């Protein structure tokens, strides 16, 4: 028990009871430690005089700090708002977002948005499977271009606009049709080598000018409505089906040269079609023999 008491007293050495160890009974190992602590606590040689410069600096610092207390850190205005106010502001902002979003969605669903906004909404929402009418199309006008076609499958070709030119007795334009001014849409039919358009020669006053009605092998991939051949009166290369002017079918001016460059087939495709319907060209040489 005495050993434990001595150890306990020794532990108190650094808690302010170090001097008592020297005077009272102490364990054997605590005595040098008590001397060490006493030596550490012994008053050192007091400085003869504190440095005048340091004291002057301290006094100046004290007076400066006393007259000019440090400014409180600036708190942003919103930081001083109470939690209730911040919560209310957040709720109001959320309500405004919901209100605006809902109104915009409703307007888009009914086709009431401006054309540009409606087209944008149509593009965006159709990607996520939401049917939204396109621009200039009422909400109940039927399925859009991405709707399934008559055969049940999805239509790979966008249907022309209602104002598109139609030939009496003909079906809607198939894919790959190229509209030429003043002529009915020609369909690409594989009937031999491609016929280059004839642009030489004087324009005939009796008939329409030679038009690039390229008749060639069917392309191996569907030809979309791409930019139509450039023509002074032709449809603009906007990727949309040609829309005739309101007055009727497009008219061509007699004698106006037609510079409709045909699509130049690639060499490999020409070689494949020159030998007849031999099938697609593959890298494994399916056309050989």
């Amino acid at each position: 028990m005495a050993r434990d008491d001595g150890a306990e007293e020794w532990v108190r050495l650094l808690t302010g009871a170090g001097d008592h160890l020297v005077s009272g009974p102490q364990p054997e190992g605590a005595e040098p430690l008590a001397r060490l602590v006493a030596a550490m606590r012994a008053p050192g040689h007091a400085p003869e005089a504190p440095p005048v410069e340091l004291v002057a600096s301290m006094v100046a610092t004290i007076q400066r700090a006393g007259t000019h207390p440090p400014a409180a850190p600036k708190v942003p205005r919103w930081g001083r708002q109470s939690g209730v106010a911040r919560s209310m502001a957040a709720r109001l902002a959320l309500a405004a977002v919901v209100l605006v979003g809902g109104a915009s969605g409703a307007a888009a669903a009914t086709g009431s948005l401006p054309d540009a906004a409606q087209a944008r909404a149509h593009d965006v929402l159709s990607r996520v499977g939401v049917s939204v009418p396109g621009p200039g199309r009422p909400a109940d006008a039927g399925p859009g271009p991405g709707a399934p076609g008559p055969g049940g499958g999805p239509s790979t070709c966008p249907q022309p606009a209602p104002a598109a030119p139609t030939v009496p007795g003909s079906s809607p334009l198939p894919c790959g049709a190229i509209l030429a001014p003043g002529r009915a849409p020609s369909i690409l039919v594989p009937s031999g080598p491609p016929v280059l358009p004839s642009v030489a020669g004087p324009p005939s006053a009796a008939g329409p000018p030679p038009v690039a009605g390229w008749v060639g092998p069917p392309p191996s991939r569907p030809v979309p409505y791409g930019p139509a051949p450039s023509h002074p009166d032709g449809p603009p290369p906007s990727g949309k089906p040609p829309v005739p002017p309101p007055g009727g079918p497009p008219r061509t001016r007699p004698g106006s040269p037609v510079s409709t460059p045909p699509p130049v087939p690639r060499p490999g495709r020409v070689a494949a079609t020159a030998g007849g319907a031999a099938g697609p060209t593959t890298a494994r040489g399916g056309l050989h023999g």
Partner: protein
Amino acid sequence: MLTAAQGGAPWAVEVLYRAHHPALLRYLRARLPATAEDLASQVWLEVAGALPRFSGDEQAFCGFLFTVAGRRLANERRRMGRRKEDSSAVSPEPPPAPDVESTVLDRMDGDAAAALVVDLLPAAQADVVLLRVLGGLDVDEVAAALGRRPGTVRVLQHRALKRLAEHLGGDDRLSDPHRL
């Protein structure tokens, strides 16, 4: 006197300096002998800047002074990038205790005693002992000055006492952890 010093009275500032500077300088010399004087001046100027806002008695002021000193010391050691603990990690074995401890301890002055503590103990333990003995800080104040938890400070203090006892006294009971 402390109130007068807070008001900027030069005589009171000088009295404060005379009363606490020796222990402060001893503490700083034990840790960083090369820059102890400069550090002490920086500590005094920092304390003077905060003195008008200080509230407490003289003992509390002593704790405040050594707290500032401890932080300055830590910053200085961090700036120098070289700590005493690293050197002790390179040579884990403490230096041998002097053979004539009893006679040396009797004639040892404060600076030598503090230097001996620093030599015998790792840096963290030496910090605790110096702040407890020289600064008169309690465990919570030491913890605040060193940025440690009070429990950690108590553990460091316990290990420091054991280690000092092993090297100074050679008492087997004090080196037995189950006894303490």
